[in-house]
């Protein structure tokens, strides 16, 4: 046995050495990479690397220092030709850049504010550490180099390394005063990138020849040479938007047949690197100064926004008029129903006022069928809304207007009668609680507005002013009458006449569309002495369920809120009284 070992000593030593290294390689390859620590090497392996780096780095640092010193002497004391002219040029350029910087900084702040509003977690490059390259791996296969900054200077694993031209790589190993940087051209590297024009995302890594490429891309004819490539930020290492390079060409991926690889020409000159920047802080934390700037700019923006909103609110009819009288004051207040009720705009005054258009609306001749002079309010009005509120107007030139007014008066004056049915003009069937019976007299006298089988609408109106109501049938009925040729939604809104008693302006609040069959026993009644608003407010209780008051339906077809619904007592107790007709 002894002679065997002595005879094959050399081969045995070789086998043992090879076996030990193969086992070591297997252990290193098998070891999973911890995510939180991101240390590519285990402790023992890292120690060996540390020893090797410690042996190689000092001479490299010395040689680098020597070379830098010689170059410094040359640059600072000898090669100073044209320095004065260069200084002048640089001063001029500095002035120009300062001017440009003002606008750029403002844009950047605005962009940060907007992204913060969108809760977009953008990583910004806030702190970089310049470092000098002191060595490389020395092999063609490992695209890795060493820099003269390490853990003592704040360098950490996986920190991105860039140049002003573009990204370079990331920190792979960190030692006290030295770090290893894995270039983007290495096959084991990876970076999330995006093609700037086509917005195609991909993974950047080096190929076997040391050229970066975006791998496994679906073939796309839009990818052209020269297209810029930037980082996407998806790798959680590189900040978004840094330059990577430009597209060189597209080649087929031999291992993944339908896919292609996009070869990239790096923006940074990776073969001639001397100095790089290590991004040591790119979190979303801001420095105190940046926070102060951000707060100031946000405060200014908020002030501007508030001012703009106030100006806008004054112009828009969606605000409650605080000066308007209350409903409980017995006035016709269109703002009584709380928030959300739009106050209509004033229509243009009539050019030639007459008894039909008493200086509140233009003459019918100037009206365009289907056009709106004032916006219709969308309503959350309840049954307590004043009678003058629902007043899409029947064209005043029609003789039927008078009849409609009479009908209205009659319906209002008949406390025992059922009012017309209110139907949203979008064709939807109104809820049961909205339905009211039409006034008996409406059928007989309202023929000018709608035919006998057509829906008839009556609304309470005071006798001392022109009918402040909207009478509209369905599209067919309206077209037949010729008053609203554009259909059911095309009732020309006619503002109500101001209430003579209260003096409050009668304004369009809600468009009321009346529909439904008319009971045969409708009779014209005398007008009540109450004001229209009071009349409507008394409907649920005072009429003891014999009559359903008109309900207000928003003209957008939406279901009115519960507060808007008028529920006569008889409706629940006597379902048979519900109108049978609907919108036709």
């Amino acid at each position, binding site marked *: 046995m002894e002679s065997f070992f002595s005879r094959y000593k050399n081969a045995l030593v070789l086998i043992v050495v090879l076996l030990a290294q193969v086992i070591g*390689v297997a252990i290193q390859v098998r070891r999973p990479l911890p995510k939180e620590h991101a240390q590519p090497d285990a402790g023992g392996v890292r120690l060996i690397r540390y020893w090797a780096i410690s042996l*190689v780095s000092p001479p*490299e640092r010395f040689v680098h220092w020597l070379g830098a010193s010689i170059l410094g002497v040359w640059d600072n004391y000898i090669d100073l030709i044209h320095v004065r002219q260069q200084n002048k040029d640089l001063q001029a350029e500095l002035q120009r850049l300062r001017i440009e910087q003002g606008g750029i900084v403002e844009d950047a702040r605005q962009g940060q504010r907007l992204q913060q509003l969108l809760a977009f977690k953008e990583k910004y490059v806030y702190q970089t550490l310049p470092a000098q390259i002191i060595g490389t791996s*020395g*092999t063609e296969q490992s695209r890795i180099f*060493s820099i003269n900054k390490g853990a003592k200077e704040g360098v950490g694993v996986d920190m991105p390394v860039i140049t002003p031209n573009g990204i370079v790589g990331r920190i792979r190993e960190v030692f006290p005063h030295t770090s290893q940087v894995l270039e983007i051209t290495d096959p084991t590297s990876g970076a999330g990138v995006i093609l700037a024009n086509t917005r195609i995302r991909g993974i950047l890594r080096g*190929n076997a020849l040391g050229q970066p490429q975006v791998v496994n891309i679906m073939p796309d004819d839009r990818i052209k040479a020269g297209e810029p490539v930037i980082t996407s930020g998806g790798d959680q290492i590189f900040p978004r938007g840094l330059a990577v390079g430009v597209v060189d060409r597209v080649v087929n991926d031999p291992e993944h047949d339908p896919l292609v690889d996009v070869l990239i020409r790096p923006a940074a000159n990776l*073969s001639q690197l001397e100095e790089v920047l290590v991004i040591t802080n790119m979190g979303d934390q801001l420095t105190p100064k940046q926070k102060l700037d951000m707060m100031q700019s946000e405060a200014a923006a908020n002030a501007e926004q508030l001012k703009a909103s106030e100006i806008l609110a004054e112009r828009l009819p969606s605000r409650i008029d605080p000066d308007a009288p209350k409903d409980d004051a017995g006035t016709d207040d269109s703002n009584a129903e709380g928030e959300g009720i739009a106050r209509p705009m004033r229509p243009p005054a009539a050019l030639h006022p007459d008894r039909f258009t008493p200086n509140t609306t233009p003459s019918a001749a100037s009206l365009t069928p289907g056009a709106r002079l004032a916006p219709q309010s969308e309503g959350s009005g309840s049954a307590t809304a004043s009678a003058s509120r629902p007043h899409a107007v029947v064209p005043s030139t029609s003789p039927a207007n008078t009849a409609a007014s009479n009908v209205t008066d009659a319906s209002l004056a008949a406390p025992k009668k059922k009012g017309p049915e209110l139907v949203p003009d979008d064709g939807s069937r109104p809820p049961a609680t909205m339905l009211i019976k039409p006034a008996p007299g409406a059928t007989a006298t309202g023929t000018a507005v709608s035919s006998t089988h057509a829906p008839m609408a009556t609304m309470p109106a005071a006798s001392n002013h022109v009918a402040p109501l909207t009478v509209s049938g369905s599209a067919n009925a309206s077209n037949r009458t010729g008053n609203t040729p554009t259909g059911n939604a095309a009732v020309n809104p006619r503002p109500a006449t101001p209430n003579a008693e209260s003096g409050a302006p009668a304004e369009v609040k809600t468009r009321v569309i009346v529909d439904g069959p008319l009971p045969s026993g409708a009779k014209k009644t005398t007008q009540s002495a109450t004001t229209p608003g009071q009349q409507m407010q008394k409907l649920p209780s005072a009429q003891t369920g014999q009559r359903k008051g008109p309900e207000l339906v928003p003209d957008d077809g939406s279901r009115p809120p519960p507060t808007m619904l008028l529920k006569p007592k008889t409706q629940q107790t006597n379902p048979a009284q519900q109108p049978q007709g609907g919108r036709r």
Partner: protein
Amino acid sequence: MNRFSAAARRDLEVQPYPLIVFVLAPLLALGLQSFVSLHFPRFDILDLPLLVTIYFAITRRNPVTGTVAGAIIGIAQDALTRQPLGIFGICKSIIGYLAASLGVRIDTENHGTRAMLIFGFVFLHSGMYWLLVRRLLAQPYAWSWLHEFIRSLINLVVGVILFALLDLAKSKEY
């Protein structure tokens, strides 16, 4: 011609070198390889640690020493790269063993012999490296016969000059 035969060279003594040369030469090779490649990217086609391994193996004529020296230099070279420790170590261990074994049998002081040895060992080193990286680690590696041929030729030229320079460091007492 008999100088190239194994029988004629077998009895040659092991050429002695100062210990400092054994320590500094590999370190210098590693440092130069790392530093010069920084400023001259094409310098990485050279493999100075491999040349130093071959030189000490064929001059020491001890397979064990060549194997261990190749393993140490290779692992140190691995430490400068991103690959697992041992890839270059395995390759250079085998090269050191073979070079030392051949150094016992042939005359290694002839420049022609050195040139042929360097050419063959560099080519073999590339082949073993490709085998380990491509097959063992399953990492991409572009193999090009032309590139490897040129690489071997360049290392041949540089190796012959380097060996001549290292010969100057021999101990004078022998």
